[in-house]
């Protein structure tokens, strides 16, 4: 990669010195360090729960550090609240979208900073115009006047990005902004981030995807267990080195996919159609098979699996499990028939943020655990403990509320919750979003192992390496249609991407 601009280290704009932060007994940060130069893109990497988001929240003025100092232009500052951080020119994209569902997209972006007319009245015309300019710059095709409620998770992220770019920040902090985006959107984001960097801003970028880290960033800071490990020029590092520093041991990032002889057809989808969203979707999944749904974000993959599971209803078609037709729009029936869906939007669909880890992990199988209608909390705890260990959930106590977990660990709890139902068909929508390298290969190992035990797996994923590494067959979705069915042997980056962008060999209905 070309990192011409990194050779002349700029002035230090923002620095953290030996920052410590604890939440009760959990020490999220102890001796964290960071130096951001003007005109650099700086990556912050570390395992789930390493303290990256906590560090971001200190820069954002959400948390005050227990120990250590924050320096702005070399001067110690107290960022007492988010408004103070903003005033200091620090723009933050949080890991979890923080939108106002009832307000319009434009208002969300400019909340508290709306352009004014004389008399401090909001200038709605300028507001709309500036919002449109931002969207054009980012290539977002959203109506600025629609409410934020109901936006897809990728669109929510784009609104967050627009929000952060809407004021001239000297420091732009992005906490896993790309986790929900497709390649095209990531490219646009990076183009904007680079132009900001070139105009002298400092960009802090957090991601679990190393290709992006090396693509965008000039320097890389590694954190482990709340501590600073190293800061180096990106061009002096390799992915393996970074991973080793993050984890503190060797990790194989290979997907341990075992080959399985597929059994009977378990899930049978025929002619599934929801007008305006997807049409005539038909496919089979056999026991022991991992079938990936690939395609661009917004192609309708999540909508298809939501319809299969019954969260959304559909206009036409049938879904059968082991030959038995499912009633449409009835997730309870789907669950009873043995389908599990791990949704893409964990905040809205996967977790009850106020409840404890163990409650969340066992929420879906309360009836199985309940004896004579009473919930035995010992059984609950044992189950939760088992799956949490298998997935290496990092939490203070299992009785802590899920909202206190790091983003990646929340995702693990969602997985635990559905895996513990022992389903026959497991549908996972972006299963490893926001999960660090080590756990990612663990999740892959787990999926592969479950498939070998006879589970039918449907996996929606935007990460091509994951799709290619895991899937026995790749179903490619483009604009609401299944456009290709590529067996493992023929699946590679080119064949999938070509089909996904509508240029593959036309083989409609090939998915049977």
């Amino acid at each position, binding site marked *: 990669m070309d990192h011409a601009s990194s050779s002349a280290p700029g002035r230090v704009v923002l620095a953290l010195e030996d920052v410590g932060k604890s939440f009760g007994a959990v020490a999220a940060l102890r001796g964290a360090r960071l130096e951001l130069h003007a005109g650099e893109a700086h990556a912050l990497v570390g395992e789930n729960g390493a303290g990256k988001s906590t560090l971001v929240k200190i820069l*954002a003025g*959400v948390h005050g550090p227990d120990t250590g100092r924050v320096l702005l232009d070399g001067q110690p500052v107290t960022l007492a609240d*988010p*408004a*103070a*951080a*903003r005033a200091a020119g620090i723009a933050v994209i*949080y890991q979890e979208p*923080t*939108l*106002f*569902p*009832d*307000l*319009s997209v434009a*208002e969300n972006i400019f*909340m*508290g900073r*709306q352009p*004014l007319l004389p008399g*401090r*009245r*909001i200038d709605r015309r300028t507001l709309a115009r500036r919002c*449109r300019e931002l*969207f*054009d710059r980012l*290539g*977002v*095709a*959203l*109506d600025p*006047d*629609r*409410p934020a*409620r*109901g*936006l*897809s998770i990728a*669109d929510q992220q784009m609104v967050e990005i627009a929000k952060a770019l809407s004021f001239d920040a000297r420091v732009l902090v992005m906490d896993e902004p790309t986790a929900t985006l497709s390649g*095209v959107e990531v*490219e*646009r984001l990076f183009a904007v981030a680079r132009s900001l960097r070139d105009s002298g801003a400092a960009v802090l970028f957090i991601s679990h995807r190393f290709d992006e880290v090396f693509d965008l960033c000039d320097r890389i800071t590694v954190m482990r267990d709340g501590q600073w490990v190293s800061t180096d020029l990106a061009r002096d590092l390799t992915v393996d080195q970074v991973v080793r520093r993050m984890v503190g041991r060797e990790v194989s990032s290979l997907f341990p996919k075992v080959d399985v002889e597929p059994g009977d057809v378990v899930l049978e989808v025929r002619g599934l159609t929801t*007008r*305006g*969203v*997807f*049409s005539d979707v038909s496919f089979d999944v056999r026991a022991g098979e991992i079938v990936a749904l690939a395609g*661009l*974000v*917004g*192609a*309708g993959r999540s*909508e298809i699996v939501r319809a299969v599971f019954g969260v*959304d209803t559909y206009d036409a078609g049938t879904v059968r499990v082991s030959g038995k037709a499912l009633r449409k729009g009835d997730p309870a029936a789907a669950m009873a028939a043995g389908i599990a869906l791990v949704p893409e939007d964990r905040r809205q669909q996967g977790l009850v943020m106020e409840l404890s880890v163990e409650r969340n992990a066992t929420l879906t199988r309360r009836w199985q655990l309940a004896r004579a209608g009473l919930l035995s909390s010992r059984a609950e705890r044992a189950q939760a403990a088992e799956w949490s260990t298998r997935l290496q959930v990092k939490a203070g106590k299992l009785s802590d509320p899920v909202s206190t977990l790091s983003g990646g660990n929340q995702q693990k709890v969602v997985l635990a919750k559905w895996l513990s139902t022992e389903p026959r068909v497991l549908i996972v929508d972006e299963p490893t979003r926001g999960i660090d390298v080590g756990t990612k290969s663990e999740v892959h190992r787990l999926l592969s192992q479950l498939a070998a035990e006879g589970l039918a797996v449907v996996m929606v994923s935007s990460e091509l390496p994951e799709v290619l590494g895991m899937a026995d067959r790749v179903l490619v979705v*483009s*604009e*609401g*249609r299944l456009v290709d069915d590529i067996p493992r042997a023929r699946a590679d980056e080119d064949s999938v991407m070509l089909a996904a*962008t*509508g240029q593959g060999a036309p083989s409609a209905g090939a998915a049977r």
Partner: protein
Amino acid sequence: MSAPATKSPAALPEELAAPERTGRRGSALVHRLFVVRELGILAALVLLVLVTVVANPRFLSGQNVRDLLLSAAILTVLAAGQTMVIVTRNVDLSVGSVLGLSAYATGTLLVVAPGTPVVVAVLAGTAVGAVCGLVNGLVVAAAGVPSLVVTLGTLYAFRGLDSLWASSADRLQINAADLPAGFKALGGARLLGVPVLFLVAVAVVLLVGWYLRTFRSGRELYGIGSAPEAARLSGIPVGRRVLTAFVVNGALAGLAGVLYAARFQTLDTTAGTGQELFVVAAAVVGGVAIFGGSGSVYGAALGALLLTTIGTALPQLGLDPFWRDAAVGALILAAIALDRALQLRLAARLRGRNARRDR
């Protein structure tokens, strides 16, 4: 329909270009649903009036309509204030007591100092309300106690204060005869045939509506109710805004107390008892979401007008007062059902659009 299959294959560089905009349909849609919501209340109102007029032609007589508008004025002012509090995901249950306290305070002032100009009396009553609102707001915003609990407490506290004051001053009731003529004239005053008190209420509604729509702090109230955590992260001074909402609501409840005094001219310590739930009902019927973040003050005002009309119309239809309560109850349920239906519809449409756009 999704007709993407026929789209010509786009080359990757073209993919990078900004996709075309979906236009202003989203806003049009939302706007239409809100208009539907308010038209619905208006339609119910018209229907109710028509039915009543058929049964009792005198219902639309000048005096009757003026009485109706006078009663509606007080509830409308309360509903306007309550809307500001509810959009922040709070509620103020003490407004009935605040009204009573302010009415009694205004009356006492006018009895003790009959020469007080009407304007000063109005301001004094409003100030009493503002102080009550400040108490509520401080406890809610600073101590972080849920507003339901706080204002339930002050509902009794303010009423108790009112009684205590009345009994220690040995003035349990203030009668029309005790009040100066200038103030009493306010109650019956008309401008172009419309009661002045009603015009005051209309002015309040327009002002609050304008404020909520036009100023940053007004929009921030909606933001706070819509997502409190997001509001904090975006640097909105949540505590200060909520405090302001409570103070303004208190002031408006105080103003309503003055209007009450001017209209009824007989004051005891029970004035305004039970109004709080009626006010919340008016707001909910008017489409103000009880969990905050959405709803307009105009809707709440229409809700207040509708509830008041029900209160006057049903007796004229020869129905038992019991039916009034039943009708209000049914209306609240209908309003909630309607809001839910509209919400679902909106969500469905927006979701369809989501998938349709994207490349």
